[in-house]
């Protein structure tokens, strides 16, 4: 499960990037994404990708472990790129660059910033119940991953997994998901009970650490702004 693995990386990394505040990394992401979206120049897009690559280098994220995340956007953007190649190959390249660049930016964010810290920043502007749902999703995800892993294990051990028979697998996985859903509906009742007992009235309070910013935060934000300006300002070389 990608999300579990990524969560682990973002939580255990100890680079300067990991130590920075979530808000500064979110701002950086915002600036980088904007840059990728508004730029339509192969060279600039290439430069942007190199910049993101440098950030990855600084953040010491194990690329071997997260590199595969880029494969998905690459494949899909190739589909769209083919569309463009018929007009001009440059356009095809641009589509690829934008998609992959934006994806790299997101991966950079998520491998250096724990989900919960991102949600904490979101809680500043999203409806509080939506943030609660995000948090519950996140918690349940980890609880349910354990359950479904065990269910799939049991199915395999009991001879219910057939590499070449998708229909049989579908039946068994269907049953497993059914079991999981039933358990989880009961779990949701129990969760609600315990939360009301603990005073839940909508809106899970969380620590949103915005202040004080450290030098690294100022640096990250400035780098973001500079990059954005760099893409906006016309370069007359």
């Amino acid at each position, binding site marked *: 499960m990608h999300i579990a693995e990524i969560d682990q990386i973002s939580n255990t990394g100890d680079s300067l990037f990991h130590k920075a505040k979530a808000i500064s990394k979110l701002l950086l992401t915002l600036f980088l994404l904007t840059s990728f979206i508004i730029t339509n120049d192969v060279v600039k897009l290439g430069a942007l990708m190199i910049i993101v690559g440098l950030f990855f280098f600084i953040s010491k994220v194990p690329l071997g472990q997260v590199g595969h995340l880029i494969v998905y956007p690459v494949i899909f953007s190739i589909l769209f790129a083919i569309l463009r190649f018929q007009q001009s190959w440059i356009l095809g390249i641009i589509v690829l660059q934008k998609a992959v660049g934006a994806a790299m930016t997101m991966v950079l964010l998520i491998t250096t910033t724990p989900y919960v810290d991102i949600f904490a920043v979101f809680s500043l502007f999203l409806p509080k119940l939506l943030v609660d749902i995000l948090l519950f999703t996140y918690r349940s995800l980890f609880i349910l991953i354990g359950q479904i892993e065990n269910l799939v294990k049991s199915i395999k051990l009991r001879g219910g997994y057939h590499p070449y028979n998708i229909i049989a697998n579908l039946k068994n996985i269907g049953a497993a998901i059914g079991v999981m859903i039933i358990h989880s509906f009961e779990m949701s009742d129990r969760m609600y009970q315990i939360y009301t007992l*603990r005073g839940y009235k909508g809106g899970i*309070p969380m620590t949103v650490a915005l202040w004080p910013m450290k030098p690294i935060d100022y640096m990250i934000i400035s780098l973001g702004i500079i990059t954005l300006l760099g893409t906006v300002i016309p370069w007359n070389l």
Partner: protein
Amino acid sequence: MEPIIKVQCLKHIYPDKTEVSICGLDFIVNPGEKIVILGPNGAGKTTLLSHILGLLSPVEGTVEVMGLKPYKNFNTIRKNIGVVFQNVDEQIIGPRVYDDIAFTPRNERMNKNEIDEKVKSVARCLGIEGLLDKIPHYLSGGQKKKVALAGSMVMLPKILILDEPFDALDPKSKAEMVALLKELNEIHGITLIITTHDINVVPEIADRVYVLNDGKIVTCGNPQEVFNQVEVMKAANLEPPLLTELFSRLKNKGYNIKIPKNLKEAEEELIKLLETKKIITDFNITNEEKVV
């Protein structure tokens, strides 16, 4: 002293029509007591606790906590009871341990410093200061139990309810948990209500024991009194703790021996018996000899 909890002939019907009745003796808890509830799987222990917490409302019978009906006065009662259910994973809400422990005080809108103080003091008390910054699902089972306990204790409730707190803990962690609970009771005067299937800890931790079986509270009393009721215990799928049983059997054979609460007492008792035996025998024989 007024009882802090009083339950009389409770009856509950679950949505799927499962009927659970907890009749027979009244369930009464006095302030400061350590109560253990025993009973076979499905006897209704968890159901009883849910009623005391005001999560369910009884079809028949009365439930009173501090003189109030918990279901009706949910918010008042809630503030006075801490609870740790069996599955701690589902109880940890906060994205980080700190947030989780701070959940209730924040919901009560306390001010920041006060919250901080409360969280840190309860964490210190449970020895989990080092975990405050961690994300809950990376903790071990035992650590999660402590975090859940911290979250339910942070407001220093009068009553603490624990459903199977010793489950799946290794022996040392279990012993630590027992010691911790006893300390909470002694130092802070918190009333404890515990369910468990681990009968060997009962003599150590319980002031009084209630036994549920077959829709009834069949007996209550101090651990010793309860364990002595062999028939009642057997009917409720229960076996007395090993040491209790062993010493009872010796007692029944006519040996003059006190039922021990823990291993240490057991050892002392046995040695005393073995030594006394010697002296008595000496004495007897000497007497006999003298007579002869």
